């Protein structure tokens, strides 16, 4: 499975970045490493001269000393594969970016990258501190887009990223782009998710196996996420969120930018609402994403489902109007506790509602059958 389809020079660049980690961390200050994509445009010599002038010669010497055999052995030991900008496995989308990584090192199914063009992938980003709304939306978007054949790209972080991956794993393919070595689960709490993505999709990174994450490496991986996919969807983010870096980078590359509208009073939805005001595509479901990327009506997502009976429709309406507990539904509709409970259970089974492990109900993205009249 471990297969190295990258030239040694490109691979050495990855190892150089790992060596430069702490140096770049010092240089790329300001708004949390936001200068890192700029720095990464530089050639090896210039980058070292900027980031670590005192030890420049020493570092370059160490990198030059890495021979092809050593690099291949390192990758094999970490069960990783690699591709580079001169090879055929390299995703087409990355060629559009001037600051694209020289090599991509990955773990999992390398075939996901094979012939991967921007129109075949969607990047879903958003707040780590997402609300249950944001998590549910991310999960459903991930699930539906993956079911429609799209590769769902995200960053394995808490909140929106993790939910997008989980949704996509359920129904299709997903790629996680990391800011550390692909063999490292970061954050560590997502070790099992990382393992699942490795099994059912791919984890990629421009850093070599074992590389530690730095603050600057997250904006750096964001530029990969933005370039890989034809559209970047922001699910939930505060006004100063790292997800906006991805959104800006995507816009700079001329990619489509989508945002999921949220309550105007919610801080968590402030950034997507701002993006929408600035002309981003409205994303209400996976169909909106497909329409924006491929043209309206080119690919349709089919939803089955027969009409709901009036009581279920009323309960669904109550949840859509903001109730989240069984008592709330019962009080709104004047139902008895048991009747409301039974209706909620049926709606959950039909897929219209999701119940959190705290027992709170929320609406899923599954559209209600036509003719419900709510």
């Amino acid at each position, binding site marked *: 499975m471990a297969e190295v389809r990258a030239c040694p020079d490109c691979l050495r660049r990855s190892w150089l970045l790992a060596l430069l980690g702490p140096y770049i961390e010092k240089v790329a200050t300001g708004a949390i490493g936001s200068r890192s994509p700029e720095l990464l445009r530089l050639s090896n010599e210039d980058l070292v001269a900027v980031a670590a002038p005192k030890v420049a010669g020493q570092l370059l010497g160490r990198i030059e000393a890495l021979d092809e055999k050593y690099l291949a052995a390192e990758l094999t030991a970490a069960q990783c594969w690699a591709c580079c900008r001169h090879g055929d496995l390299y995703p087409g989308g990355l060629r559009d970016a001037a600051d694209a990584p020289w090599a991509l090192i990955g773990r999992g199914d390398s075939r996901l990258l094979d012939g991967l063009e921007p129109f075949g992938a969607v990047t879903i980003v958003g707040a*780590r*501190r*997402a*609300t*249950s709304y944001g998590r549910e939306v991310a999960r459903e978007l991930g699930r539906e887009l993956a079911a429609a054949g799209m590769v769902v790209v995200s960053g394995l972080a*808490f*909140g929106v990223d993790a939910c997008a991956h989980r949704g996509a794993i359920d129904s299709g393919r997903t790629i996680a782009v990391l800011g550390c070595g692909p063999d490292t689960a970061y954050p560590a*709490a997502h070790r099992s998710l990382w393992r699942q993505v490795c099994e059912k999709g791919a984890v990629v990174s421009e850093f070599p196996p074992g590389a530690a994450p730095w603050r600057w490496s997250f904006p750096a991986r964001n530029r990969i996420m933005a370039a890989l996919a034809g559209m970047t969807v922001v699910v939930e983010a505060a006004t100063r969120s790292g997800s906006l870096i991805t959104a800006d980078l995507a816009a700079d590359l001329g990619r489509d930018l989508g945002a999921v509208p949220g309550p105007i*009073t*919610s*801080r968590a939805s402030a950034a997507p609402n701002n993006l929408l005001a600035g002309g981003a595509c409205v994303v209400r479901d996976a169909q909106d994403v497909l329409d924006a990327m491929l043209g309206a009506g080119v690919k349709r997502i089919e939803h089955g489902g027969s009409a709901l009976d009036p009581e279920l429709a009323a309960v669904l309406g109550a949840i859509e109007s903001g109730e*989240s*507990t*069984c*008592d*709330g539904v*019962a*009080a709104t509709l004047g*139902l*008895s*506790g*048991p009747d*409301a*409970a*039974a*209706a*909620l*259970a*049926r709606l*959950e*089974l039909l*897929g219209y509602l999701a*119940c*959190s*492990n*705290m*027992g*709170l109900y929320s609406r899923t993205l599954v559209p209600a059958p036509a003719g419900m009249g709510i």
Partner: protein
Amino acid sequence: MLATARTFTLDGLAARPVRVEVDVHRGLPGFAIVGLPDAAVREARERVRAALVNCGFEFPLQRIVVNLAPASLRKAGPGMDLAIAAALLSASGQLEWEALSRVALAGELALDGSTRPIHGALAIAEAAREGGAEAIVVPAENGPEAALVTGIDVIPLDGLGRLSDLVAGAWEPSRPEALPLALDAAPGGPDLADLRGQPHLRHALEVAAAGGHSLLMIGPPGAGKSLAASRLPSILPPLAAVEALEVARIASACGRLNGALAGGRPFRSPHHTISPAGLVGGGSPPRPGEATLAHRGVLFLDELCEFRRDALEALRAPLEAGEVSISRASSRRTLPCRFMLVAAANPCPCGRGEADPDCGCAPVAVQRYQGRLSGALADRIDILAAVRQPSAADIGGAAGEPSADVRGRVAIARERQERRLGPGRCNAEMTPAEARECALSSEAAALLAELYARQRLSGRAHDRALRLAQTIADLAGSAAIGAEQMAQALQLRRRDRG
């Protein structure tokens, strides 16, 4: 001269027989107690000496040795004072009591010779009867509880001075009135009528009570979780006479029976800082914990996520087995603890819930907090009820259905379960095999099968849904589980998906 008397020492909930041997002979005046006495027993020397003198007896100025047999058993507590005093009086020839070897004595002495109540008089009286004693002499305050034990005479003694009257036949003690064991909670206690609105929470409580299912309530502070939990004992069926005696025995051993027993099922709500030993029992000598005090009643763990992990872990095995085993180097005790577990938790550390814009909890903190819910006791919990802040209309609305009415339905449902499963058992205790024998209508089976396929339920979650559905069907009085009842059960069940 030598004299012996019989008494008991409390070990957990059980009373162990102790023979008090007193030898008075010539030598340097002294008073020694041997036979593994603890500090309280050793101090009996001073109490007995003062009590004898203050009651007009003479304290022999001779060498006195008190041996507590068996010597291998550790004796604890002040309950041996009375037996030591009686044996001492007999050994020094001040009391000619030929019946001394046929009666048992237990009680603490005050310096003026009056008796003080002791812990565990009920268990001691029972042990005395098992040991073949004709009568048991207890402090007057313990008389009513000792009188619960039939088949043995109970002599309530108010002071050491009365002992000589008793022996001389000048005083004919009458058997004290037995303590009334209330099977039901006293009227005027907490009532479910106080829970206004919140129909789903009421339903969850009723199902929990009917099937003995453990319940977890999650909601913001002030939503009524504690109020609901404290009303649960009032809707549980009344105690059986045997159960009431078990409850009284535990209360007696912990010294909680003196005065009045509240009646009905116990409700225990330990604070979340409780130690494992405090929760399930422990210490040296081992003492019963909150789990045992909640026997036949409700153990309410408020702020479940704040409890120490090791305390909750310690509760797992007792919850399954219905008893606690405390092993010590010298012995192993088993204490009963069949209780209903009710827990409450906030949705996040600040309690507001992440839907509230004021919730400032970091996602990692929320994750860690909720992670504690899924660890520890989660797989022992059947019902999850999300509780919301009651609306103004709820609070100002009419009082809810009173406990008595709900209890009626619960009692009928429990009868159905006992008929099906055997006496004293409830749906929550059904084995997987029994759960799968539940009669299901075809629609209900289809619903369950669909959920099973869709959400990849574990076998355990599948059985839990069946048990809940069976309880709801028992409440409704239907022979087979209907589709509606299954749907309700699926809503009430705890979610185990992250």
